[in-house]
């Protein structure tokens, strides 16, 4: 904002100074330091170098997922058997698999599958966990007790075991994989959010809201949820990496996404055992893609945590 202050000053014979009028220009100049987009990036690079690296990977993945059709004109599911197991080269930059499918294309489209499953699971899982955790803290008593014991039971199972059990019950497929991964996320988020919400519940403005006769839903949604967004966002970003890894694990075990869909875990499963020696590229590229994606989301999640957590921020 630009602006200035203009004062009309009269110096009398007696030497007194009289300010007769002060004009304030409409526009003020902002004297705070200028922060450009590049400056912000530079600042982030300096303060969160690893987080920035993670963000680059995440952005690259999103770009691949969104613009897959532009990045490659090849159908990821199209078999070209005459080119089966072609080594990386000019024709196929990352080589082909046992069905002659272009691995680069399948890696690009695989990002779409990974992100679709990752975001869906992370958003639904953490959102349900948020509502459940805040409600559990807000109502307390028997409701809290029951919810927390159920959470204890679900959290007693390792993530992959619970996901395997769910998908074994429901059957393989993208929809069932999303359900299988989402279910274990809900109690994890609920537990973390609840611990924050318990402290907020004791703050007087919640009592004030109650005294004003606001509904429970309004108190939870408008006065408590916004105040637990920091842990929620941290959980959300950490779930993204976990969901991608879980989807890949389930697909690798043959219980996730099914052929011919391009999915990194499935690509690994199709090539790791049989072609590890004779055509290692079949397993190497999807393996690298999975590692990079999880690495990127974890780094990015850590950076978000460091930024949002007041204690870490002050350090």
């Amino acid at each position, binding site marked *: 904002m630009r602006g200035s202050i203009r004062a009309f000053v009269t110096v009398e014979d007696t030497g007194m100074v009289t300010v007769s009028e002060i004009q304030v220009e409409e526009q003020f100049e902002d004297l705070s330091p200028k922060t450009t987009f590049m400056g912000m990036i530079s600042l982030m690079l300096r303060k969160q170098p690893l987080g920035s690296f993670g963000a680059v990977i995440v952005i690259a993945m999103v770009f691949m997922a969104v613009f897959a059709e532009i990045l490659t004109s090849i159908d990821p*599911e*199209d*078999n070209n*058997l*005459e080119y*089966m*197991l072609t080594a990386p080269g000019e024709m196929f930059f990352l080589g082909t698999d*046992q*069905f002659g499918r272009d691995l680069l294309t399948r890696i690009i489209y695989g990002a779409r599958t990974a992100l679709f499953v990752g975001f869906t699971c992370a958003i639904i899982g953490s959102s349900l966990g948020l509502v459940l955790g805040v409600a559990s803290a807000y109502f307390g008593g028997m409701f809290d007790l029951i919810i927390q014991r159920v959470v204890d039971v679900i959290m007693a199972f390792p993530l992959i075991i619970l996901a395997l059990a769910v998908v*074994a019950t429901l*059957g*393989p*497929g993208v929809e069932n994989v999303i359900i299988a991964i989402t279910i274990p996320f809900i109690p994890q988020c609920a537990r973390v959010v609840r611990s924050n919400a318990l402290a907020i519940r004791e703050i007087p403005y919640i009592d004030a809201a109650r005294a004003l006769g606001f509904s429970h839903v309004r108190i939870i949604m408008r006065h408590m949820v916004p105040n637990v967004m920091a842990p929620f966002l941290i959980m959300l970003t950490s779930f993204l990496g976990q969901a991608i890894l879980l989807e890949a694990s389930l697909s690798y075990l*043959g*219980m996730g996404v*099914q*052929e*011919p869909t391009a999915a990194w875990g499935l690509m690994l499963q199709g090539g790791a*055992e*049989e*072609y590890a*020696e*004779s055509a290692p590229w079949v397993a190497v590229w999807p393996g690298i893609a999975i590692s990079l994606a999880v690495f990127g989301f974890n780094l990015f999640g850590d950076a978000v945590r460091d930024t949002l957590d007041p204690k870490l921020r002050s350090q």
Partner: protein
Amino acid sequence: MSNTYTKFAVSLAVGAGLALGVSAANAETPKSGGILEFVVPGKAPSYDGHIETTYAMIHRVRPFYSLLIRVNPDNPSDPSDFVCDLCAGAVPAATENGTKYTFKLQSGVKFHDGTPLTSADVKATFDKIIFPPAGVASARKSFFKAVKSITTPDASTIVFKLSFPTGSFIPALATPFNFVYSKADLDAHGYSWHKMNINGSGAFKFVQHQKGAFLEGVKNPDYHLAGRPYLDGYKAITSAKMALSIQAIRGNRAAAEFRGFPPKARDDLVKALGNKITVQESDWNCVLLGTPNHKIKPFDDTRVRQALTLGIDRWSGSKYLSKIAIVKTVGGVVFPSHSLAATKKELMTLKGYGADIKASRAEANKLLKEAGVPGLAFTFHNRGVDQPYKIVGTWMIDQWKKTGMKVKQQVNPTPVFYDTLRKKKSFDVSVDFNCQSVINPIADITKFLGSAGNNYGSYEDKPLEDIYNNILKSGDVAEQRRLIRQYEKRALSDEARMMISLWWYKINPHRSYMKGWKIAPSHYLNQHLDNVWLDK
């Protein structure tokens, strides 16, 4: 370069293996002693051969039992070469216009518990298989439709009387699942006892079974074939994954896996172990099918089913899939190497077997439009086993997509797969298979009959049943062949009840020190191990 090298190495190994295998069996003197260790993928649901249909049971349990007759172990590729196992001399010819078979049993045969084996035991066994009491399962009862009665004139003679002469009786009798049980065991313990217990008269005696780990057998010193077995014992090691099986052979923890490996595994083993590996290969009496569910629209429409089969380029599939999967041969309803099988010229008259795939796919699209389902969308139900199910399934989906159909794949673990296929029948089009042991075309082709117990297409086809009945009763091979072509045309082309993808191809790389074992056109055959020896 490396590919050429690999092909050359494989060719050398296969050639050398086959050549050496044949000449070695003739020239080399078997050595006694040693324990054969081999890997078995999969679990055996029970030990009872009469109810089971899986190689996982046969590979572990077959060496404990004898059969009345068996496929010639030295010539297992010949579908008409049978020899006596418990019976004496040569396999008897039929008398009374082909309706009576009289077998004389060898003397002095004993069960592992020391009791003598008589004709009463053989009769009790085949009574259980052919005429099981209500509530008692028998997987191969339908193979013996022609059998009218079984009698035992004396302790060493057994007579089978048939209602009509049929060439399918002797092959059915040689089925490796027809373990001869002790009548005393059946009488004392009931018909379920053999599910969990073993008392046979085979070359090996049961020692222990650590489920999920291994099963052990030890040489039967009272075995009825003189000088056999050569081995002191065997150990069947459970291997959950193919990669583990390959590594077990590579690391010399096991000498063989008898089901079969894909070509890539063979190439890797040959490349790594050179002449320490011998490779035996054979056509395989197994075929992967596609079964449309006739109860679900639009698969009740012949045009839609024909479009499905027209979309598949089998000739190209054979060329390429044989490099990555255990499938190879294009064929009709009969095992391709058999004299009753269709020639290439005959096959090419069927829908979906033509040389011009573009024309076939154009016809498929025309049929789908006529049926009111252009760009047909459906879900293909498959079994969660890589070789060859998932490989062939992925290829078939691509073939249909190239025809303009939209196909999703639903892969289920084996128990869920069977439940969906056999009980729920909630699939659009499902993968299915027809795997048999002894090559017996007349029995094997019953799979395509809507009335067959192992047909899951939910259809009735009276003309097809009539043709089959004529095949069954025809004594003349030329007439049988002509009728089978009619049957094949109706089942695969005119009505397109089911579609055949490719016939399997068996590849068995094994340690070269394992001698005497010969590959058969089935993973169920030649697993008695009494002729196997170790040259270490």
